[in-house]
């Protein structure tokens, strides 16, 4: 028994429930036996990885599910040993650049060259006694390399990918998975087939959750028997997780684990950092002073120490502020304030991605918001 999110992950393209058009296209792609380099993008929890694995399943059969984890070692030019995990099946290989830190370029170069220079031989075909002609024309001669979190690849690494993608295209197919294409350099974008996987709608979320519950008979007992009530719970969940389906499924599971009886009024279990951010956003609007800023700073430190990515904090704060500005009575010119807050968010998001000291920029954002709100409340024109 494992996590539901894992247990009920669709294995084949046929099992995928939502985005039927994407599934159809992928099926057609798989049928041709070959596919170009793929860039899959979309928000987290939308099912990018699932779709990618389903495609491979369609292509290679159940062999792709025989996963194993290897620890590979590379040596950097400076002599440092670098270790990272590679998840692989006989047909594909999966790497995550964020494991490698600054040395992703070397890893990409070495690893891809390594794979690209060895042709895979279809032993299965040989054993079956297929003739050599079939073998040479074998459509599945290439190996697939999946790069998770491709947006984390450094510029250098992406540049290293460019040529490799073309040179070794006979042996390698790349699947880049990322949440946003803005960090991917253009040459790579042009070399790949971009597939966007959007979030499921709230109803689609509900359906997925319903299917899961129907399989979990023990859990189902604790949920209301009335279907509409159940769907209301699903809606709550989908709301809370922003339609991030993986998170939604985990929330469902958490709901089951933490409650004796689940009713539509049961509070959805949300990650507590979200609550902290909500609290923070309210505080910022209410009290715009240096001493509040000091408190903010410790909260931000706390959030960062709990491994919440700074960009996520910024995003959460902005969205919360957006919501709270509507509710905050003191503000006169709501639309303009909102616009300024969002502008500030974009500015500081850029700074976050360019700089490395998250706390500077998060606090800078909070300060800017305080100044904006203060200006509006006291009626100054900025």
């Amino acid at each position, binding site marked *: *028994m*494992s*996590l539901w*999110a*894992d247990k009920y*992950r669709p294995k084949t393209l046929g099992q995928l429930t939502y985005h039927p058009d994407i599934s159809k296209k992928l099926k057609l792609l798989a049928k041709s036996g070959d596919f170009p380099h793929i860039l899959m993008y979309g928000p*987290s929890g939308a099912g990018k990885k699932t779709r990618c694995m389903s495609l491979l399943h369609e292509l290679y059969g159940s062999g792709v599910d025989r*996963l*194993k*984890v290897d620890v590979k070692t590379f040596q950097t030019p400076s002599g440092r040993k670098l270790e990272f*995990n590679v998840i692989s099946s006989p047909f594909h290989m*999966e790497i*995550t650049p964020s*494991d490698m830190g600054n040395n992703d370029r070397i890893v990409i170069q070495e690893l891809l060259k390594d794979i690209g220079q060895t042709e895979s031989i279809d032993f299965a075909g040989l054993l079956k006694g297929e003739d050599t002609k079939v073998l040479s024309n074998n459509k599945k001669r290439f190996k697939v390399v999946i790069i*998770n979190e491709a947006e984390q690849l450094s510029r250098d690494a992406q540049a290293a990918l460019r040529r490799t993608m073309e040179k070794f295209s006979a042996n390698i197919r790349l699947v880049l998975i990322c949440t946003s294409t803005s960090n991917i350099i253009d040459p790579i974008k042009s070399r790949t087939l971009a597939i966007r996987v959007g979030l499921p709608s709230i109803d689609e979320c509900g359906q997925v959750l319903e299917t899961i519950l129907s399989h979990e008979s*023990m859990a189902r007992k604790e949920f209301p028997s009335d279907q509409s009530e159940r769907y209301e719970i699903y809606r709550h969940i989908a709301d809370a997780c922003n339609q991030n389906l993986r*998170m939604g499924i*985990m*929330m469902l599971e*958490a709901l089951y*684990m*933490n409650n*004796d009886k689940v009713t539509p009024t049961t509070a959805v*279990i949300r*990650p*507590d*950092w979200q*609550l*902290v951010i909500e609290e923070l956003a309210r505080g910022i609007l209410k009290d715009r002073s*240096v*001493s509040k*800023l*000091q*408190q*903010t*700073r*410790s909260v931000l*430190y*706390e*959030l*960062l*120490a*709990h*491994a*919440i*990515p700074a960009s*996520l904090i910024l995003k959460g704060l902005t969205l919360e502020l957006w919501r709270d500005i509507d509710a905050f009575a003191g503000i006169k010119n709501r639309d303009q304030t909102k616009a300024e807050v969002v502008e500030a968010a974009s500015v500081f998001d850029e*700074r976050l991605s*360019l*700089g*490395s*000291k998250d*706390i*500077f*920029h998060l606090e*800078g954002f909070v*300060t*800017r918001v305080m*100044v904006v709100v*203060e200006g509006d409340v006291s009626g100054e024109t900025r």
Partner: protein
Amino acid sequence: MPELKLDFSKSLLGQTQVEVRDEQTSASKLDNSSSDLNTVLKKDIEYYGSIDAVSSKVIVLSNGKKVKLKPRKKEGSQKNARKSTSSLDADIAREMGVLVNMERLRRKLKIRQIVEAQEPDFSNRFVTKFGNDVSNSEGEPKRKKPRTVTFRSRMGNTMWTEKYRPQTFFDLLGNERTNRRILSWLNQWNEVVFKRPTPDMMIPEFMALNEQHGEPRSGQGRSNLQNGDGEENRDPFNRPYHKIMLIYGPPGTGKTSIAHVIANQLGYEVSEINASDERAGAEVRARVRNGLQNRSLSGKPTCLIADEIDGASEQGFIRYLTSVLYRDEHATAQLRKGGTLDGAKNNKGGGKARQILRRPMIAICNDAYASSLEKLRPLCEMVAFKKSNTRQIKTRLRDICSKEGLGTVDEKVLDAVVECSSGDLRSCINFFQFHGSSCLTTSSEQSTFENEAKGRDGITDDAMKDTQIAWYLLASEIFNRKGRTSKPAQRKKIQSFVLSLPHNQLQRVVSACFNAILECSSTGLKKLEETSRWLYFGDVVSRKCRAFTGRAEIGTYEGAVINEVFEKFNDVDVFSSARANDGGRLHFGTRDTFGDMKIQTRETMQRISKNPQLRLSVDELSILSSIVIPTGVSLQEFSSSADKVDHAVSVARKLGFHYETKSTRGKDGEFSNFHDKTHIMVPNLAVFLMSQSTVSKQEAVIQRLQRHYLRRREAQKALEERERKREAAEVARGIVSEKNGAVGGKALSSAEFFKKKYSEMSTKLSHGQEKGDAGTKKVARGLGMLAVIRKKSSGGNGNADGERKEKGVMSANANRIWIKYHEGFSNAVRKEITWSHLFG
């Protein structure tokens, strides 16, 4: 009165100390005021009054001169002895009511006179050299001609620091006690080096030090030596306990000077090995050996001075030094055991004796705790040099200035120079040499001079000394306006500072600024907002700097941030007390915990990412935590629903988590009565939780889960056991059935094939036995011992248990060999062995 006999070589060190101390502090006040002497003499009388008077005295000066002292007889050189003093002596003597050894007192005065006699121009004594080239054995007083003239002629092109380097013990500045300690340490070598008795050590603290090391007082030691056998740890030559002296301290405090002066004064030829010499193993070995074993041309023994040994590149040198010391220790120990003192005393005593260290070594460094000195440190007599006190330095500087014709230098200038050099006399002298040449007659020039001296205050002189100011000092400088300096001046200062700091230090300063800006009294939201732009700039710069290694100069632009912060927040009264103790600032304690958390997080993420199926992002982990460790329901409810517990446990197991019990201690290291144990999940998911209440609840739940997990594992084990037994039983049944010849179907695996063969064999064997055919029996037994089971890798935990179990079942048959074959094992080699071949 009978003639007193006193070895002055002992007493110069011991007995004159008290006097020297006072002399030292007022080195230039040459005509001692009577009050000074008064106290000195008083002390002496108190001290020596208790010592029995000896008949006559022969004074051996440190330079080897022997002076015979006769009681009540004034020598010619003493004509100018101050009458006031001698009358004072008498006064004191009367007061004390004891027999005062006037001779001693006079002799004390004479030390000065002797020095004066040698250097007629006593007030100018820095430019003369103390005569010390008298060979130790003969007592002929040899007067050295003062070299004043030659020095004067070279004045124009000499560094003052060299010119005014102390030449005699009296010239030395610094802590009198440390000076004396070095002197007496070196004196302890007398016996082995000069074959003359080691002087009594009159310094109580030093005696204490030696006794602490298990070293007897030298005087006693000497008598013991003559008696033959002595104490256990006694050095056969009464050498000091540590054979190397390590002098350490900041630059410009006179470490090299004291080593040279004292070595010279005690009649050694100095052999210096400093950083300018090649100090790789082989080269230095020859030099050290020469220094330690040979005599110099002048016939004087050498004293090895290893200067500046704290560099990293001196490993070979230090290794050699330590090896010399260890060899010496070994030889000494052997000597002590064997008692072959006579042979060893002879310099050419043979191989063993040659290993004994016969010459003193003095090592000098700035940082005694440098990593390269780690091995050497415990073997050394450590002497710390501190900064000399300001008064001494000023006096010396005034002296030098007056001698160099700078006239009387203004007190303020002196103060400024001494303060800014932070007690580095050398840099002070340098300063005066190069800046003092501009004449100081008019008041305006003097003020510029003073300004110049002040301009060096704090910052530039540190650059001059080649040491940088600590980053936190710079940080505090940024925020604190000094009342007396103007803002532009301070800005200039900070800028020069920033330029001198390396990049990584600058980053620290920026972080410190970031920490502090919220606490400034002048801070405001607008100001902070503007600053955030600059912080961003600094951040980008430092990141770029890291990206392009070798282009560290970009990093200096980070100084712009510091400038900006300075412009905005520099104030006389910076930190508002109201906010000073508030949160916001990242304290060291929290910083540590945050660091811990980051490490834990990374580990956890790594562990989770090893799970190939599911890739979780960090923000989802708190939800995961509430699935695996549900704290929402009460404990009873939770444990009553078995499927939930089961689910949690199995999910955790699937993800590769396990439970751990740790016994904890109270913060003070005591066991607290309850909560002796904490239960945590490994990896610790609590890292991702922010509400403390949840975290505290977790423990109980984990405990429950753990119990369940253990129970389940046991159950699983039991299940596996049962399975195993059943299998074994089946196997047995199979054998029986095969025995009976009922072989159904073909063998699926080699193991089964073997079983069949085995049963055939055993039947054959029994037949053979019945027949009584010995040959067949032998062969059959040999083959019967060969049994191979090919272990199917069935996966899971049960594997190992299963194997053990199987072994247990089968071990009833004693004469079998089980060869296990692990399929997953890479170096397992398959060999084609046909069964039919084996079984013939």
